[in-house]
């Protein structure tokens, strides 16, 4: 803001719809976690979250959305036990591209949800909120991937 003038930085800024009625949905479910992939990570962390009854996991993968192959079986186990596992990238200004390398394609085949360019922390909080709204995993997946308030931008620009 500069001299009473507001500069809108988003080019697809959505104006508030004044006709819309406010409806508060404040419920959160804390059984969601964020795991950042790094070399030497112990995949048992994923198993631990599963054991503790966590419902969802946001992975913060490298580059286009990868984790080491040695984590695959833990991820598979989590998904088979109805845990929602979604991918974000450590490259905060970048976007996932999970069909470029086999690693990404394999993760998608396991059932990992790609979240485009959603920030890892945003994804975590969103996932907590999502499980506050629904207990149905399929509905939760749809809601997590829906672009509700600009947490996903369909285009990455150069500047």
């Amino acid at each position, binding site marked *: 803001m500069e001299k009473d003038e507001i500069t809108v930085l988003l*080019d697809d800024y959505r104006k508030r719809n004044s006709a819309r009625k406010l409806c508060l949905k404040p419920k959160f479910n804390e059984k969601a976690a964020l795991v950042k992939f790094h070399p030497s990570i112990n995949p048992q962390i994923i198993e631990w979250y599963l054991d503790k009854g966590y419902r969802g996991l946001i992975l913060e993968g490298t580059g286009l959305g990868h984790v080491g192959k040695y984590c695959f079986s833990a991820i598979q186990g989590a998904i088979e036990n109805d845990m929602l596992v979604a991918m974000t990238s450590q490259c905060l200004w970048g976007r996932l591209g999970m069909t470029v390398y086999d690693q990404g394609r394999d993760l998608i085949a396991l059932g990992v949800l790609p979240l485009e360019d959603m920030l890892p922390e945003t994804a975590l909080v969103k996932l907590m909120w999502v499980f506050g709204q629904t207990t149905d995993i399929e509905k939760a997946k749809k809601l997590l991937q829906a672009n509700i308030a600009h947490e996903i931008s*369909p285009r990455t*620009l*150069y500047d």
Partner: protein
Amino acid sequence: MNIEYSRIGLKVGLEIHQQLDTASKLFCSCNPQLFKGEPVTTFLRRLRPTQSELGQIDSAALFEFQKGVKILYEATSETACLVEMDEEPPHDLNQEAVETALVVALMIKAKPVDEIHVMRKTVIDGSNTTGFQRTCVVALGGEININEKKVPIQHVSLEEDAARKMKEEDQIIRYRIDRLGIPLIEVATSPVIHSPQEAKEVALTIGRLLRATRKVKRGLGTIRQDLNISIRDGALIEIKGVQKLDLVALIVENEVQRQLDLIKIRDELKEREVKARDIKEEFVDVTTIFKQTKCKVIQKALEQNKRVLAVKLPKFAGFLKRELAPGMRLGAEMAEIAHFWGRVGGIFHTDELPAYGITANEIHELAQSVSKAPLDSVVFVADTLENSNNALEAVVQRAREAINGVPEETRAANLDGTTRYMRPRPGAARMYPETDIPPIHLKNEYLRKLRDHLPEMPEQKMRRMKKEYALNLKLAKQILDSEYSDIFEIIAKETKVSPTIIAVTLTETLKALRREGTNTEKISSEQLRELFSLIDSVKTTKEAIPEIVTWLSKHEGATATRAVEVLELEMISQKELERMIDDLLEQNRTIMKERGKGAFGLLMGNVMKKVRGRAKAEVVTRILKKRLKEIIT
């Protein structure tokens, strides 16, 4: 020229590329629109062809690369993202585009593939930031019917459009990447078309089919047709980028003529006993001859320390200036090839001299320096030593090819129906898999759904339009072939204006206005709808249409209501009309006395002139008749 096309073995295949009107581009979410004005950003690239990823480099591209050509890309943030810049992998294949291509495929009874595999087609002229164009076959086979004849379709594909070339200056080529990635549907026929007229009809029919999907863009530059043309004894020539349907027949005619004349030159060269080995790459530096020249081009070159190199083409005299097809000569083809390989502005040849300020004396000295015999031709260029050498090598190569007749090449279409050399024909193995995008499986269930909801076939639509809107055949055809058939139906449904009037406006009136220079492409569907709703609610009249349309074409985004206001074309109220008629009658009292009822025609004409289309003739007639009757009795 009367050519029996069946006797010369003419074979034409058509490839139609049409931009789709999707919400976003083929591999990203950018807006598939072109931008006007200045780019917000530019970036410079060099292409480095590699033999990797199974791709094969074509010699022309390698050559460009070795010459150190740089490419400057222009972009705005609305029309390009990191995908077009090749800084981010492509996103998923646009489903809307796939569906449109499938609909077209099913309409022509082609067989959709089980899996769509996106491929990369090597393109190293810089028109794609990646060095390749993404393309995928969506369906194979199928056919269309032209006058009882079946024309087989080879495939229906989807492609990303290339960047558009804006400028070429020395070592830098400028491309705008707004067009890059716009979805194109490609429909390719087998080479079974045997006359120019037939080629036109095939193009027309495919165009109608594409428009029937209602998912194609309209306007110049949104459709591009490539033609493959060959005749017996000639060669397979690929002509790229025909932008207008009207040009298809003419381009085929011209290409046939060009090939026939090249064959004639071949025969005459044979009679003169010219052999390929006689045409030697012996380039003579003749710079000193032109030290005092009056020729501006050479003067300028010499000021920049460039050289003049000459080569002798034995027994070629007369051939270079001979017209092949209207506007195309062998000399001009050599110049185009010299430009391609040597980046020279042009070539000089003795067939067209003296001219351009070059004197008979200079020509004489030139002839001596290369030992020119009377039947020989001399070609020379003024450029850097390297460019001149490259250019003359290309000229020699082209002269040798003339001995064999027609060389295979890719040519580009000009707007006047002529063509120009573009590049040598690329090798066949230019495709390799796009590894960033997994194959897309087409489910039977999905295809069945599409098949059950295909759009109306054009013939069917024509019959229906004739019946439903009581249009005559000519008008029904015109509206169907225009870009306005959808908007016509919308307007005909939402207003009570006579469909014939709507159809005439959208075809003949717009055509007449175009001829007068009105840019009717600027008129939006919304403006047209509003215009007819104004006519429907008697806020203006159909007589005012041309004036309103012309105004709207110059005021993009303005409303028809505003046009009516500005042009003062609102309907005159009944009261005002009555007052005007009364005034007029008052002024013409004597005429009325003399002629009585017979004055009607004259008075009517006067009123109509005064109201300038702002009153309906029926209403004027009614009031005028009533008043006349009152006055006379």
